[in-house]
């Protein structure tokens, strides 16, 4: 066991810390609604007193410094550094410590960019990566359909190649941020004769293409987090396919694991724990601080134990990336399940200890934390369901992780 990063990282750490001190407590100007959710979820500080920067400008600064898009090649708008997991860790640690706003995430940056780097043509990389990194092109993920949720591979939205164009008909649902997005990456059935998994292609669709209709769906947080998207003869050029025809399932799956890890970032969870501790020191009942109430305090400490455990687990995963061949057993596979449940529980504790005040929401003048406790409590229930439900996660852990037998196939009724 050795948790030192080594002295060769001292200079780099100093550089990052210097930057972080300068931007400590900075806020991102809410130049666009689409970033609101991102900030609440990534644990970015609210009501702080530092500098204020626009989102795109902030992305640009971070890329120039190499604090974001670090290993993405320069010609695609990244920093162009060698991949260095320790440096990434140092950056994340210092940003959290000094409450510096994180770089933007989201489905474009977290999923589409790595997908294009792995599967995209040179033209696709040139065209999309830089503007995505700068937050100028927002992407949505068009996978789920009304009849294809957990059983995603049964999706039916159809794509036909007609005169060098894909003509797409069908419907997607639960499409997060579709109403703010410029582009969608979409799974479409293009090979109706092929088997379920082999008939799907991965296609990029500009959201202003004629024939697309977006109907926002209000979710339980009362924000319209996701949408229904209808396609009526939506026509995009043939070269908008990523990978070959029928390879869509593999293309999509190559980055799914990535999404699952990022849904429950342990650093964001730690930030929220610290915010919760402060809340418990500030709020009172009958003049007593909430943290002085033994039953509340015990629940806080129970959650702290879990947070420390997932933090330690992520250190072990980091170690496995640095030391190839290190076996971390189920350490990666459990992250989405454990992390989303933990975050939901943490946010729920804040509501419980505030009692009646915990029910206040939205713009009520007495609401605490800008309504973020209720919002995030509910939003994480959404993440328990989204990104592969936690029941599906348990299937994966038991079948692939523990080698337990699969469900017997049910005879299809005809």
């Amino acid at each position, binding site marked *: *066991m*050795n*948790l*030192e*990063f*080594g002295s060769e990282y001292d200079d780099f750490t100093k550089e990052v810390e210097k930057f972080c001190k300068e931007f400590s407590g900075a806020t991102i100007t809410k130049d666009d609604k689409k970033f609101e959710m991102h900030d609440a979820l990534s644990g970015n500080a609210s009501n702080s007193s530092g500098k204020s920067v626009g989102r795109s400008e902030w992305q640009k600064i971070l890329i120039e410094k190499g604090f974001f898009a670090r290993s993405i090649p320069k010609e695609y708008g990244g920093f162009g550094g060698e991949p260095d997991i*320790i440096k990434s860790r140092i950056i994340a640690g210092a940003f959290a410590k000094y409450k510096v706003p994180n770089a933007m995430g989201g489905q474009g940056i977290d999923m589409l960019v790595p997908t294009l780097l792995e599967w995209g043509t040179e033209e696709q990389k040139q065209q999309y990566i830089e503007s995505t990194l700068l937050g100028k092109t927002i992407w949505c993920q068009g996978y789920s359909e009304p009849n294809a949720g957990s059983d995603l591979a049964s999706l039916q939205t159809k794509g036909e190649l007609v005169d060098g164009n894909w003509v797409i008909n069908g419907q997607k649902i639960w499409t997060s941020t579709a109403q703010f997005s410029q582009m969608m990456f979409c799974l479409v059935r293009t090979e109706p004769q092929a088997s379920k998994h082999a008939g799907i292609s991965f296609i990029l669709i500009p959201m202003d293409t004629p024939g697309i209709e977006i109907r926002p769906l209000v979710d339980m947080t009362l924000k319209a987090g996701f949408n229904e998207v209808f396609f009526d003869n939506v026509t995009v050029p043939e070269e908008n396919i990523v990978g070959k025809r029928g390879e869509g399932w593999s293309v999509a799956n190559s980055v799914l694991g990535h999404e699952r890890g990022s849904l429950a970032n342990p650093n964001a969870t730690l930030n929220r724990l610290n915010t919760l*501790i402060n809340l*418990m*020191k500030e709020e009172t009942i009958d003049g007593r*601080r909430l*943290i*002085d109430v*033994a039953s509340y*305090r*015990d629940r*806080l*400490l*129970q959650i*702290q*134990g*879990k947070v*420390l*455990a*997932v933090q*330690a*687990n992520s*250190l*072990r995963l*980091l*170690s496995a990336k*640095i*030391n190839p061949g*290190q076996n*971390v*057993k*189920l*350490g990666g596979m*459990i992250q989405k*399940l*454990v992390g989303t449940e933990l975050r939901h529980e943490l946010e729920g504790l804040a509501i419980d200890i505030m009692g009646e005040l915990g029910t206040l929401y939205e713009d009520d003048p007495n609401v605490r934390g800008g309504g973020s406790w209720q919002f995030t409590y509910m939003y994480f229930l959404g993440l328990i369901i989204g990104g592969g439900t936690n*029941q599906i*996660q*348990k*299937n994966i*852990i*038991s*079948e692939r*992780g*523990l*080698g*337990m*037998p*699969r*469900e*017997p196939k049910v005879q299809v009724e005809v």
Partner: protein
Amino acid sequence: MYFGLSEEQESIQDFVKKFLDDNATVDEIRKIANGEGEEIENNIFEGILNLGINTLLVPEEHRGLGAGLLHAVAVAQSLGSGIGPIPFVGSYVMAPIAINLGGSEDQKKNYLPKIADNAIRFGVGMSEFVGAREDAGIEFSKNKLNGRSLFVLDAEKSDFLILSDKSGGLFVIDSNAKGVVMNKLTTVDKTRTFHEILLKNVDAEILEKTLDNNEIAKKVIDAGRIILSADTLGASEAMVEKAVTYSKERKQFNRTIGSFQAVKHMCAEMAADLEPCYSLVWQAAHSYDTEEISSSRLLACQSKSHISEVAKMISKKATEVHGGMGFTDLLGLHYWFKRIGLNRQILGAPEIVREEAAELQGFNQ
């Protein structure tokens, strides 16, 4: 940067595990538990001592290995997973640490090499420092100890005892000295021994540096808690493995029960909650070995509390996966269930250590 056990640590872990797999089968454990296995018990103890577990935490200058607590954690995991029916946490972790940190040079020279040479063995009683039940507690005056100490670890057949008073003074007595009465407690866990010690004017010496300084007692408790966490970790791992294995063999409704989602999900829940515990316990031990006290003490408290909660869930669900068989003495799953249950209460049950963790962080005024 490397987060995990070293090759050396993994190898002693494997040795202990293999040894217990071969020599401490459930049938043998049952004989010991029923009081019919003294010879078996002695053989197991001797075999494991041959691996040098008594030397781990004795410094090199006193003829020990001078290894860190993480080394002992590696061993404790295997003892838990194989429900090793031997003294460890008291005799070979807390005692050498207490003497090394609290003893004068003479005391160290007197006791530590003998522990390393397996010439003497200690039992350790510190329950009253954590929280006294009933009227338990010991008083030291004029080099005599009086009083009562409960749940003393590894006292059976020990040569000496280290006992703590309520304020963290640590005292050494001869287990066979005049005025010492040892009553073996009947607990649910029959794989290890726990004693009530009654003292009447017993000759005692104080570990010199613990006079008016309870920091040493706290450090000893930290180490004990981390080792108990590791023992629970190992026992939990074994229970999950047994549940998964059984679910792949047992058939009902013409299917292996492991293909039922209710069973699969119980197993996934156990595995998912257990996996981060390895990291937590290892980090606690590493930080005990390297860092300043405050963060390692928090981790010691939190690993003891967190793994105890996770293990309680596991010991229940793993039993359920086995159906009626899980409830039988025949299968012996209950030995793991009880070991986990006992570790949970010793040296501070979850609520108690969480309260200490809160105090450490200045939460409660």
